[in-house]
């Protein structure tokens, strides 16, 4: 009896897949680190306008978001078709903006408060009347740094 069997001819040897999990894990970690989970589920249409002179918002934890736009299709029957404000996960009225800013400030550290930026994520079809009201409200609570969220692109697409 020969100790060494001759290899069978034909039939490819199986590829070793032992390192496959490693590769997949590597990808997995990359995406885990790069992921930013959406913290608000939008109840409004929110297609941002394009602008060419945009600046990036660096510190994510110093940004407060105010969304404005028409209610999306599921909410049309209840909230109508006029543009509305969304704060966190609820529809809100203009008078709620001040309270929202106060509550956002309350959970931030005190030394960070002067650096807070309010990002206005407004649908490009919304009317300036609503935006103006919100701006006025922001001035009342002294939240003066604002950012008109927009996508980098050409203005002709607006």
């Amino acid at each position, binding site marked *: 009896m020969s100790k060494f069997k001759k290899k069978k001819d034909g039939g490819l040897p199986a590829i070793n*897949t*032992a390192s*496959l*999990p490693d590769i*997949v*894990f590597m*990808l*997995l970690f990359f*995406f*885990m680190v*790069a*992921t*930013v*989970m*959406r913290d608000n589920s939008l109840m409004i249409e929110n297609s941002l*306008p394009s*602008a*060419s*002179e*945009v*600046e*990036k*918002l660096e510190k*994510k934890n110093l*940004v407060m978001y105010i969304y404005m736009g028409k209610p999306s299709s599921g909410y049309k029957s209840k909230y109508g078709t006029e543009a509305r404000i969304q704060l966190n996960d609820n529809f809100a009225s203009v008078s709620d903006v001040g309270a929202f800013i106060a509550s956002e400030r309350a959970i931030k550290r005190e030394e960070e408060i002067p650096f807070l*930026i309010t*990002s*206005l994520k*407004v*649908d*490009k*079809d*919304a*009317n*300036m*009347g609503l*935006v*103006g009201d919100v*701006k*006025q409200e*922001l*001035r*009342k609570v*002294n939240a*003066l*740094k*604002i*950012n*008109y*969220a*927009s*996508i*980098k692109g050409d*203005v*002709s697409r*607006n």
Partner: protein
Amino acid sequence: MAKRAAPEVNAGSMADIAFLLLIFFLVTTTMEKDSGINRKLPPMEDSDEDVVIKQKNIFTVLINNNNQIMVEDELMEIKDIRQAAVEFLDNGGGTDNDGNICDYCHGARNPSSSDHPDKAIISLKNERKTSYGTYISVQNELVAAYNVLRDKRSLELFNMSFAEMQKKAKDVNWVGNKERLKEQISQIKKEYPQKLSEVQQ
């Protein structure tokens, strides 16, 4: 009894589990960073005394309910605003508050347009039914006008565009004199201050 080696765990399904997680994160990932046009609102102060500004130092832009744009009492297309604003800001027809003339302006020095970039104010007005898209387009063009002038000036002085200077000031890997760079940036900002006022209805 002989000690048995622990049986090996079958790791064949490890890849499947990892794939499952990978696909979950792939789907939930949003890579984009927030970007937008930064603005500062004027503080709420009801001062009784109105600051008197000469009409020629104000560049009025009005967007009406039908998204038509009126610049200095004339109808204008979005694409022409940038040039008009540059001409207005860079005019340098007079002196600033300290009586200095604008020696770095390249404008027409028209006495009926703005005196000095330091005095020139762009006032952006809108009506309630103006669409936000148009408003941002106009605002973008006005900010672009300032950036055009600042770029031109910094290329003249420091052989570097203003955007490049700002990028370098933020870049931690940049080797060079950051203090000086910051001074240069603030000098450009002082020569062409962004005086863009959004009028509340």
